[in-house]
């Protein structure tokens, strides 16, 4: 029983970075109706941009902030290609998936050429690696910081979407972009702002993940896309707050399965996704919606 309860704690930590990533993925999906297979490229760009900016000091805060800005700009560029090149021309959804996949592949290749295949890491002070017990769960201080940051980011984005005019615009476009445009909303501006926000969240999740797993390479994030998609759809496709729920569920499920059999841990995400979609196809917090393209 102790091992099971410990696994819940581990799952929350591993699920926290996934939750932030799923949040960015879900925003993209909600507004652009694009399954952005290249989302992991935002995570990798964020990690390596933070690494590049690290010598500027004030790590991890300043490098991470700059990495978010840089990745947001990259995301906007990707968004321009996707929206003007394909989405506005009514390209098939599968075409959009392929385009985003191609973008991710290009990003990985460029990063591999520049940074090679070595492992990189962000330094963690030894004091943050000491253990602390919270509600019977054992964490390190660094893990608690990651958890707190993930929770804070999700709460901040949720507040932005609920109470700001930008958030109202995002929700309106997510519900019905044609109606939103007819109502006078600047749909294109909001769409590209969401691409930027998605990129920034990707960068944040990449940095959080790098702290969680101790190191990162130009290919190490590829395996997380499955977890991100599983978390996004488990929580509710296009439902930003569902990402936090989905991330927690996926993380805890993986850790619990690992207690019984580590080899089965990778399939836990799929099993949870299938179960949720059978029982509640819209996801835990999702609701059925009809999307009309502007």
């Amino acid at each position, binding site marked *: 029983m102790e*091992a099971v309860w*410990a*696994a819940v*704690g*581990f*799952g929350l*930590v*591993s699920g926290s*970075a*996934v939750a932030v990533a799923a949040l960015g993925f879900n925003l993209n999906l909600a507004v652009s109706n694009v399954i952005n297979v290249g989302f992991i490229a935002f995570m990798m760009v964020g990690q390596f941009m933070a690494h590049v900016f690290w010598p500027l000091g004030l790590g991890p805060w300043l490098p991470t902030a700059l990495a978010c800005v840089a990745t947001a700009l990259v995301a906007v560029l990707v968004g321009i290609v996707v929206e003007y090149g394909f989405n506005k021309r009514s390209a098939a959804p599968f075409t959009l998936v392929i385009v985003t996949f191609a973008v991710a592949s290009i990003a990985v290749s460029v990063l591999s050429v520049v940074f090679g*295949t*070595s*492992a*990189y*890491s962000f330094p963690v002070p*030894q004091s943050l*690696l*000491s*253990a602390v017990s919270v509600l019977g769960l054992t964490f*390190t201080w660094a*893990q608690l910081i990651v958890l707190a940051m993930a929770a804070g980011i999700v709460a901040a984005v949720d507040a932005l979407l609920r109470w700001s005019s930008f958030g109202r615009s995002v929700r309106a476009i997510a519900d019905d972009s044609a109606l939103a445009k007819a109502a006078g909303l600047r749909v294109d501006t909001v769409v590209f702002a969401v691409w930027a926000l998605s990129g920034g969240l990707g960068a944040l999740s990449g940095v959080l*993940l790098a702290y*969680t*797993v*101790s*190191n*990162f*390479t130009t*290919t*190490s994030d*590829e*395996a*997380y896309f499955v*977890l991100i998609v599983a978390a996004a759809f488990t929580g509710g496709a296009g439902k930003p707050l569902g990402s936090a729920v989905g991330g927690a569920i996926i*993380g805890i499920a*993986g*850790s*619990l399965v*690992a*207690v019984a059999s*580590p*080899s089965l*841990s*990778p399939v836990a995400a799929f099993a949870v996704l299938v179960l949720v979609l059978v029982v509640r196809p819209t996801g835990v917090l999702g609701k059925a919606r009809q999307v009309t393209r502007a």
Partner: protein
Amino acid sequence: MHNLRARLPGKGLEPIARGSTQVTRVARSTGGLIALLAVIALIAGCGAASSTSKNTTTPITFGVAAAFTGPTSYDGAIFGTAVKIACGAINKAGGVLGHRCSMDAINTLGDAADGALAVRKAFATDQNLEAVLGLSTGEATTEVPIVIANHAVAFSIAGNQTLFNNSKLAPYLYMDQPPDSQTGVALALAAVKEGCNRPALVFQTGPDAAPAAAGTDAALHNVGVTPTANISLPQGLPSYSSVASQVVASHPQCLVTEIDDPASAGTFFGDMATALGGKYSLKTISDDVATAGPWVKAVGNAIGQSALTGDFQIVQPATPPTTPGSKFVAAQWPKYHSGVPVTASFSEPLYDSAILAALAMDQTHSLSASKWSPDVAKIAAGEPGGTTVYTYAEGVKALKAGHAIHYVGAIGNMHWDSEHSQTLPQAAYGLLAGGALGTKAIITIGGRQIASASKGVAKSIQ
């Protein structure tokens, strides 16, 4: 005038007049046909003749199948240099049956599919390819069958268990490295010799580590030791905290492990450090995957370089004693490739394999693999009363004098069993900064110990 009729192609019988242009045309075409048939017969006859009747100006080729470009081009540099040095020694002593030796770089790009294409192309373009050396783990299962199908001999440094289990390949396949399961046996014996009677086992899921995992498990069983935990670790997860907790909770005295993926290794050992209270402090015994640069960097980032160099030991084939052959290889190496160091594990066995192949051809007076291949093992094992030789030149001289020979090469004695597999003594070395190994073995494990503890290792490991 009689009309001479001749059947012209496609025209049926046509009347022909002597002296006419038609006769000339027919005569030319008939003569040309006869000449063509004669040339074809000549070429076919040459091909069917004994292979020793090759023109001695034609060199024989030893192909080296490895990555010569790309991220793993390090392999090609090491393997190719070793065989070039062997060819240099062979040519200096007059070649093989009068034929000069040359090395052909078969660039596999480090990939099984690309390697298969490259090996096929090599045989299609080089009729003198006698043997292919290198053929490392990850590529060998696709490349070795092609080599053998082309009636050449394969000398492989792979640890793939499937190759060792395939008796159809054995006559033309020589394994220059022990199978991975043997490495696993050595890991287990190293742990026990170090006083670890409560080891925890953590091996990466998948075909790369499976043979070593099976070898370790079987060897511990054979020596009466029960692991406290035996975990198959899937690659690429964001957290191994549950696994690390299980391992630590079993109170092991040491960890025996092979985790090939550097990122996964970094994550796992980082979580182990957390589970151990924030500092990694468990004696850990791994094989030489833990000496690769990316692996050392990833794990060092996770647990600190001091923990890596303080707690980790690496088990691999023991550094062989210095022999005349190893001195020769070391002396020649900088002339061919100063960019990479001699790596005893691979360069010396490949050098010795090329020399043994050449001596086998000399001994059997044949360039036909079916005739010389069995003599490779015979010369390596030696016969009672045979002359021990340390170089190709000495071997040729002894053969000319009518003596049986026993070649002791750069790596020392190479003992191939009936399936052309080797059991080599292994040793544990300390892991130093940057992935280097300590020069002095902490413990050694003899070949007989390994063979004895290998009983029951499943031969059907895939």
